[in-house]
């Protein structure tokens, strides 16, 4: 308890607090810019921490990283462009809300759920470190493989209640997995589907794919409509909209809590990353709908589709830190970079962080909590002005957003081909939406593809096919079957007569 309180006082010291504020300002801007993710910025900022004390360095870095995750949702909602590389799930319902003139409500909901998620993540981090070790050690490659497959099954099962919609969803999940195999195969180093282009040796980068497939179709649709993002809806009730969004968070608090738990859990699992947490939380939010009619609202601007990913996106930061601090096993790319900061500070992740450096560990918990509270309060103060952007004529907005989209994509490899990839996936995304083929399964398949292949390879190499009979794997297979079948069972009358 003493270390917990000491951690708070360390963060509140003027130097650490000032550096946290600087980090937050950087994170705020970076989060708003499409494509430039928190992880890339963490890497850029690492050289600045050499002369800082551990508490100051983590206040600076974590303040920046956690805020980028929060403000990424703002761009997703206002322009349909994922602000942070992995905050795409918020687009699915947040942007339709903005188009309906409810940008204020969506932003209020996203920010408040982010805050709740961040606090739950920080609390879990504070409580879980001593007890999480057995859980992480229980999950070997076979279990992690099954978890990834469940992630894809979750989002795919939401592609619709007819057999044909499910087929489209699974096909897109598989296409995403197939796209992830482009480039060098990790185990043997052989090249796959590189088409003789050196650019493809490293595989397709996530940022151009994600920004292209989500942002370009929305921008084209905005140009087709020839109106502002909010259309002909009058710019009224923005303040009350924000308040309504905040109230929505507490109206659906149990959902926000569950999605935060999903975020923490995915964060703890090594390698899964924030994108997976968001989509799994989104899938959970959709599956929580009481009936088919309620479920149909998702994708068309249901506030629960904003609350779930918003909460998970921030709670996973706390979860991510757990294996990083406790075992030196980074939960994501950003945490791998943060691990570099540990080394620079001369700190060795592991038991020492729970004994000798416990106050530093708790200072991280406090940084996560304080940085998010300040960001949300500041954002709420300027939200009305941000939401007004959705009432500017589309013709004026489109070239600016295109500029951000393409500069963001370009940062992936600093190569002109990044722009071509963005364009191609933009075209693909547009065709998919036009024809009713879902994009989320493709994205999740792509995000998880490399992990799925690695875990499958290790499982088969180590256990042959005997891993399929391990008790925990069997349990996870059971969960996957339930995930796929449950919506059908619950909505039997709807699909029984569904024409398929």
């Amino acid at each position, binding site marked *: 308890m003493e270390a917990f309180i000491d951690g708070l006082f360390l963060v509140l010291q003027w130097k650490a607090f000032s550096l946290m504020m600087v980090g937050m300002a950087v994170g705020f801007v970076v989060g708003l810019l499409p494509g*430039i993710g928190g992880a890339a910025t963490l890497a850029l900022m690492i050289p600045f921490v050499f002369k800082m004390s551990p508490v100051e360095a983590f206040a600076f870095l974590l303040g920046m990283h956690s805020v980028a995750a929060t403000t990424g949702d703002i761009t997703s909602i206002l322009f*349909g462009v994922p602000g942070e590389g992995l905050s795409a799930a918020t*687009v*699915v319902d947040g942007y*339709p809300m903005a188009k309906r003139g409810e940008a204020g409500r969506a932003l209020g909901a996203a920010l408040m759920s982010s805050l709740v998620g961040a606090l739950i993540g920080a609390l879990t981090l504070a409580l879980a470190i001593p007890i999480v070790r057995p859980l992480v050690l229980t999950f070997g490659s076979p279990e992690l493989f099954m978890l990834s497959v469940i992630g894809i099954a979750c989002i795919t099962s*939401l*592609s619709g*209640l007819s057999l*044909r*919609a499910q*087929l489209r*969803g699974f*096909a897109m999940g*598989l*296409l995403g*997995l*197939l796209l992830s195999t482009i480039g060098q*195969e990790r185990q*043997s180093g*052989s090249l*796959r*589907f590189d088409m003789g282009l050196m650019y493809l040796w490293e595989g397709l980068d996530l940022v151009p794919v994600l920004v292209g497939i989500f942002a370009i*179709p929305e921008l084209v649709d905005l*140009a*087709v409509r*020839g109106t502002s993002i909010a259309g002909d809806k009058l710019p009224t009730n923005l303040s009350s909209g924000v308040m309504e969004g905040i109230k929505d968070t507490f109206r659906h608090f149990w959902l926000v809590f569950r999605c935060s738990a999903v975020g923490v859990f995915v964060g703890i699992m090594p390698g899964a990353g924030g994108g997976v947490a968001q989509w799994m939380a989104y899938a959970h939010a*959709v599956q929580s709908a009481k009936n*088919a009619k309620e479920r*149909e609202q998702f*994708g068309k601007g249901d506030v629960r589709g904003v609350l779930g990913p918003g909460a998970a996106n921030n709670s996973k930061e706390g979860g991510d830190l757990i294996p990083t601090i406790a075992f030196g096993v980074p939960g994501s790319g950003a945490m791998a970079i943060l691990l570099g900061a540990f080394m620079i500070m001369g700190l060795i992740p592991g038991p020492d962080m729970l004994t000798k450096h416990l106050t530093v560990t708790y200072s991280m918990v406090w940084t996560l909590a304080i940085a998010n509270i300040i960001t949300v309060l500041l954002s709420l103060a300027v939200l009305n002005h941000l939401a007004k952007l959705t009432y500017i004529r589309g*013709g*004026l907005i*489109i*070239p*600016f957003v295109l*500029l951000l989209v*393409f*500069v963001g994509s370009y940062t992936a490899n*600093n*190569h*002109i081909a990044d722009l*071509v990839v963005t*364009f191609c996936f933009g*075209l693909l995304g547009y*065709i*998919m*939406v*036009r*024809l*009713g*083929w*879902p994009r*989320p399964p493709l994205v999740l398949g792509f995000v998880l593809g490399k992990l799925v*292949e690695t875990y499958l*390879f290790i499982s088969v190499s180590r256990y042959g096919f005997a891993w399929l009979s391990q008790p925990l794997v069997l349990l996870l297979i059971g969960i996957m079957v339930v995930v796929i079948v449950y919506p059908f069972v619950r909505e039997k009358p*709807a699909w029984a*007569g*569904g*024409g*398929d």
Partner: protein
Amino acid sequence: MEKKGDLLFSIFLILVAGYAALSASQWSFKTGFFPLVIAIPLIVLTIVHLVLEFFGGAEKANGPAVEAEFTTDVEPAVARRRAIETFSWIAGFILLVFLLGFPPAVPLFMISYLTIQSRTGWLQSTVLTAGAWGFFYFLFQRLLNLQFETGVIQTWMGL
């Protein structure tokens, strides 16, 4: 129209997956196993979908639950023309970046789009272009220090 598009998209998927399966079957087990176990079910699922689409009657439980929907308020012919125009502008921007590099392409694209496509007045277009270029220059070039490739024209001219 929708069915024709669906047919073409399904054929595209089958071709992509077929190419992947064929290539993977010629690689070593370690390299080809994963793409092969993905490509084959992808072909099967797409064919089943195609068969249901054309011989399975109308799909009643319609539409994906977790996907955005485009506007239906605009006449299809106008919508198609505007979509093609926008994609052409995007392709033009990429071509500009390829030829000139990002820094000159940004103001050129901004002013062209605003004046020609958005039909904005010259004064407003110039002010907005200057603002966008300033934002681009100070944030991306000066503050974030992002390195942008020079265009092929400058390279040819040895600039």
